[in-house]
Structures are given as C-alpha cells and as structure tokens.
C-alpha cells in the first residue's frame, strides 16, 4: 500500500525538483537570481509538504468521519506552518523573490495536472491514428 504511495511521491517530487532546478538555473543565468532562488525554495517546501501528506494518510483511515475531519484539520494546520517558512524567508530576505516562491509552492500540483493532461492528450492522439 505505502509502496504505491511512495512511488507516486517519488515520481512527482523528482519531476517538480528537476523542473524547479532547470527553471531556477535558467532564471539565475538570465540575471534574475532572486526569482531563481525563490522558485527552488518554494518547490523544496512543496515537495516536503507532498511527502508529509502521504505519510499522514494511514492516520486518516479506519477512523470515524469526525475523527478524520479533525485529523485532517490538524494535518492541514501543521503543514501550513511548514509552508509558511519559505514565504517568511521570501518576505524577510531580498535574495528570494516572493512571487517566484509562491509559484514554487504549487509546482508539485502543476506536475500532477500536467502529467495526467499530457498522457490523456497522447492517448487520444494514439487512438485517432
């Protein structure tokens, strides 16, 4: 059960980090160092958040609806505290661009959406051929 979750996490986390490093490197080369650093910082915390979602999944199963709700609320709160760290860093230090950091926080979700949409498009094209 957890192997399958870890495989999914590995797939999307590695893609998000690779994308962040490539985008960040490109931005740094283009002279936009704070933006490049911001993307990488945001993505790093987005990856940690995604791993934590997976690790807390077994806690939510086999419980009543009320317990699941409160566990989810606690989990959201704790993970949001963690996600606040890159935002505080970006707000306090000029070396990280705030908007690039915000973009990085959503890179895992973007990778998930892009993966499914691209595979659906390629399947549709194959079926047409």
């Amino acid at each position, binding site marked *: *059960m*957890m*192997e*399958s*979750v870890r495989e*999914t*996490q590995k797939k999307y986390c590695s893609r998000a980090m690779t994308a962040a490093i490539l985008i960040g490197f490109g931005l740094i080369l283009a002279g936009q160092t704070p933006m490049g650093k911001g993307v990488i910082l945001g993505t790093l915390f987005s990856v940690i*958040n*995604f791993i934590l*979602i*997976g690790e807390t*999944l077994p806690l*939510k*199963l*086999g*419980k009543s*609806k009320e317990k*699941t*709700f409160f*566990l*989810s*609320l606690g*989990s*959201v*709160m704790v*993970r*949001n505290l963690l*996600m*606040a760290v890159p*935002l*505080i860093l970006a*707000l*306090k230090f000029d070396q990280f661009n*705030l908007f690039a950091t*915000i973009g990085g*926080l*959503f890179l*895992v*979700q973007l990778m*998930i*959406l892009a993966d*499914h*949409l691209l*595979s*659906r498009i390629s399947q549709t094209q194959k079926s047409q051929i």
Partner: protein
Amino acid sequence: MPYDLQTWIKVAAFAGGGLAMGFGAIGAAIGEGYTAAQANSALARNPGSVGTIFKSMLVGQAIAESASIFALVIAMILLFSNFTATSYVTVAGLLGAGLSIGFGAIGSGVGSGFPAGAACIGMGRQPAMSGRLTTNMLIGSAVCQTPSIFALVTSFILIFSDFSKVPVNPAWAALLGAGFASGLGAIGSGIGGGVVAEASCEGIARHPASVRQVTNIMLLGQAITQTPAILGLLVSFILIFKKFTATDAIAPGMALLSAGLCMGIGAIGPGLGEGIASSGGVRWIARNPAFTGTLTRTMLVGMAVAESTAIYSMVIALVLVFVV
C-alpha cells in the same frame, strides 16, 4: 490612549492575516476529511485496489489543499510585510484582503474533496477505469479552485494597490465590501463545482463508455457554476476601482458595504444550486448517453433559473453602489 495610523495598519494586517488563515483552513480540511472517509468506504468494498485508491487519495488531497495555500500566502504577506501607508483606507484594504481569501478558500477546499472522494469510490468499483477517473478528478478539482483564485486576485489588489489618494469615507466601506463580495461569492461556486465533478466521477465509474460526454458536460456545468463567483468578482472590482466623492455622512459607506455583502451572500445559494442542477444532468447523462441533448437542455434551463437569484443580488448591489 490615541493610536496612530501605523498602529492601525498593523492591527488590520494582523487581524486580516488571522482571518485569512483561520477561515482558509476550514474548507481544505473538510475536503481532505471527506476524501479520506470515501477512501475508507472504497477500501472496505475492494481491498484489492488499496494501492490505486491510496494514490488517488494522495493526489486528490494535494489538489484540495491548494485553496488553503492561497490563504496561507495572503496571511504571510499580511503578517510579515511592512506596510507604510498615508491613509486609513489601507486599514480597510488589508482587512478586506484577509476576508476575501479567508472566505474564498472555503468553497474550493470543500468542493475539491468531492471529486477526490468519488474517484476513490469509483476505483473501488471499476479498478480498470482508474486512469480516466484520476484525470477527470484532477480536471474537476482544478476547476473547483477557480473561485478561490478570484478571491486571491482581489486580495492581491487590496494589498498592493495605492489607496492614498482616495477619500477615507466612503472608500473604507467599499474595500471591506469588495472583500466580502469576492470572498463570500466564491463559497457557493467552489462547492457547486465540486458537486458536479463528484457526479461526473461517479458516472464514469458506473458507465465507463460515457466518459467523453460526461467529461464535456462536467466542464460545461462547472463553467456555468462559476458565474456567481464571477459576479462577486465583478462587484468587488467596481467597489475597488470606482471613484467616490468624499463625504462625512455614514450612509454612503454603509450602502457600499451592504453592496458587497449583498453580492457575496447572494452568490452562495446560486453557486450551490447550479452545482446540484448540473450534477443531476451529468449523473443521468452517464446512465443514458443517448439522451445527452435533452438532458443537457434541461440541466441548462435549471441552472439558468438557479442563477437568477445571483442576478437579483447583483442588481441590488449595483443599485446600492450607483443609485443610493
């Protein structure tokens, strides 16, 4: 002891940040909890599909959380930025920003949990359809985030615009009203969009052959379900960008605040109602794809009627802004 402008700015930023994250966490937690509860049900029905169901739950929860991350972003900006303002209007702007994203994240968080939960149940029923169900769930959940993105945009405008040249009265009420219009207006559409996507995941799992029609009608239904949130955004933009003449009377300010509340509260029911109407269409198209045309027409008529109360609210909001 009299407080200076900078103290009030700090008070508004802290209060706005607290409101943003406090309300913003509610929806995502309900959505995630609902997904987990449905995953339990799916696992009990089909323990053999545990890996697929768990993966779907993980991905669904990650998307459902986006709305609360929007709220977190605004809360952090409000708490840790140094706002230097020359007008008390900024106080209202910062509070409005917190209210907008705090309320705006509730619907999208709850709504995104519905398709994720239905996808888990569907995978328990039809493990062979897990790929299509995941894609459909992700599209449905992503569209559910749109109302919270509207609220996020309003919050950014309220935080980063320069209000130093606008008159304190009645602009303070207009900015608070903008927060209410955009934030409360997003609740119904966010949940309604989720109800539609849930019906679509359920339909695909029951009748895999109808996947193309179901996905198309789901997108149509979700697009129309977003209109009350768009009306909320429109009223909030009018409140933010309209030029008001300075006054000492309290009534013009109250009219603007009421305009925002009228549109925001008035958009909740239509968003939900349209989602319910559309979910019926999607559900029955999945069962009887041969009648897609008739069912879509009935669904659209039902949604148009449900939309009318949002239009009444918008008319009254516009009367409050332009006539009263």
